[in-house]
């Protein structure tokens, strides 16, 4: 693990890496909640549960307007969940908003 030090996050590789880490994190939350992808899809009101699989492999993102329902579905605190997601999906603004925050990104 390393602290978040990158300054340029619009690079495609960085985005892919962060999305992939977000997916792994979301998968871990789902598995901790003992939910199948289909069950989680039902809870977050997604009609095609393969979307969950897609998100978990790091393609796409949890829609901004759906963050709250995702947090609730996974039994997570909404603010903490949103903050963590922001670190993956919008790292530049995350660093501006939370200059002292460190997020956990694998090397």
């Amino acid at each position, binding site marked *: 693990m390393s602290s978040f030090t990158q300054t340029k996050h619009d690079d*495609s590789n960085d*985005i*892919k890496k962060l*999305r992939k880490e977000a997916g792994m994190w979301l998968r871990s939350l789902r598995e901790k909640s003992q939910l*199948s*992808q*289909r069950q989680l899809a039902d809870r977050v009101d997604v*009609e*095609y*549960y*393969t*979307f*969950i*699989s*897609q998100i978990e*492999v790091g*393609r*796409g993102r949890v829609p901004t307007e759906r963050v709250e329902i995702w947090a609730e579905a996974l039994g997570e605190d909404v603010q903490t969940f949103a903050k963590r997601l922001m670190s993956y999906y919008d790292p530049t603004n995350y660093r501006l908003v939370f200059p002292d925050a460190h997020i956990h990104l694998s090397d």
Partner: protein
Amino acid sequence: MSVALFHKNTDQPPKKSWWNNQELAEFYRVSDIMAHAGLKVESESGVSDEGEPWFAFVRADTEEVIAHFAKIDDVFIAVSSVTQDIYRGSDVRDLINQLLKRHPLMTPPSNNGRVVLHPRMVLVAFVAAAFVAASEEVRANTIDEVLSAALSENTNIKNIVSKEITDTYIPDSYLYENSNIQKTVSNETINFNIPDHMEEKGTNLTTKNLATHASNTYSDIEIGKQYGNSIALISAVILALEISSRETALANSQSAPLGDYSQELQGLLINEYFPVPGLLETESTQVFNSLDINSDSSIVNFVQSVDSFTVKITSSAKENTTNGSGSSHEMPGVKSSLDLALYNSANNMIGSDGILPKAKLFIDDNTETNTYFFQELNLDQINAPLQNISIAAINVVDLVNEAIKNVSSNLNETSLKFNKIIMRGNIESYFSEENTTVKSWLSLNPTLAVQDQGSAEPLRVKENEPELSNSNNSSPDLLPTLDIKGYLIDGTNNQEIFLNDSIDVLLYEGGSAVVTGFELGKDRIWFFLSDDKKSYENYRITENNDLILEFGSGDILTLLGVLESDNSSSALL
């Protein structure tokens, strides 16, 4: 030719199902066409925790998923990831039908003045629309709205911007006088309507530029809500149409006058062979492209791939010898004539990648029996120049259709339908029978026996020959009882050949010949041509519907009444 990378996740649970070849071909088609259009997309595929497959297209510039396909509970779904519009079908074809039902203007041409989109392009349009819809200016709208807006007339759209046709051709079938997209063939300019504020008089925009223009410079939100999707989707659809015009024209030609399409026929018919046009470079002339020597069983296979057409020549070695050049496999007792053709073809096999084969066929002139050898080559020999002989297998349907455009005025109501013929054959032990120089058979057992044309007996067909144990050429397009006959045209002038109801294969080495009963779409011609001939220099269809092939050597191959048989008609109608 573009290259599309398809990612598949390996860290996935066991698959309950996966995409079939047709579905993957559709995805490749989408990706390839999008890439040609400058809409760079990536893809990702995987399986759910229940083992059900999904496939996503991702905008490479933003990493945003634009379209998601999946098989869930045996239902094929397509989702515009931006708008979350979901389409469902039992399979990809059914899904396309659903799209067509929801957007009836995307149906084939009915002379109603609408822009039309061939079903094979619907998926492309769907993803292209999703791509464009992902732009900030239009993302608030649904795919339904975007498609409807793009494919219907909009009386508020007034102005016209000219667009230069670059390197592709938009068939007339898509562009009717009453639609909001028009084409003027004479000056090679197409016109399509865009809103007032989009007008750029005197500016030539490529379609790609227009798409960019529509999505990136469109700033008037209110007007954008009214027109933005229409412009963007028109652009997207045109992209798909433009790039795939040859393919779509082929299908639409089934219901349109031949004359409208005569310019497109040549490329279209070749493309029909391939599931994903654009991913493959196609040529009408093919060469043997692989040679496989199984040292254990002394089996030599020549494999020719002409689309799905495969020929194998298999011989059991009688003796194995070794010299400084490598191992030799003797094959005694080979007859002349067609063996020469095989000799020629074997020695001129060039892989599709330009790599020379690793073995050659030699004739031992010191023996009275003209013993033939397959001899593996050392590296120096592999790099040696090839002999000046070539082999070509030419699809006669392509040839005739190419010729038809010269007489299209005589076929006013005729339209084209490519009747694909798949032949797979194996030629084995061609030296083993007394009067037979080549024997081949289909995987479903009909056997072809070709004799020297000088023989009084017509060429023989044997059935129910044992199938090769290593044959994997089962062909659903062939019936087990299919009758195939081969005819050798070996350079003797003025040969006259009468074909029958079999699938007839003309093996043409040279000379003049008149062939009666050649059925277009069923019968085949293989050309075994020396370097000085290479190919026909001229061809034409006469008033009597004869196809005339004229070679540089002065030889003429005439196929009498090639357009008159029932099969030929069905191939052309």
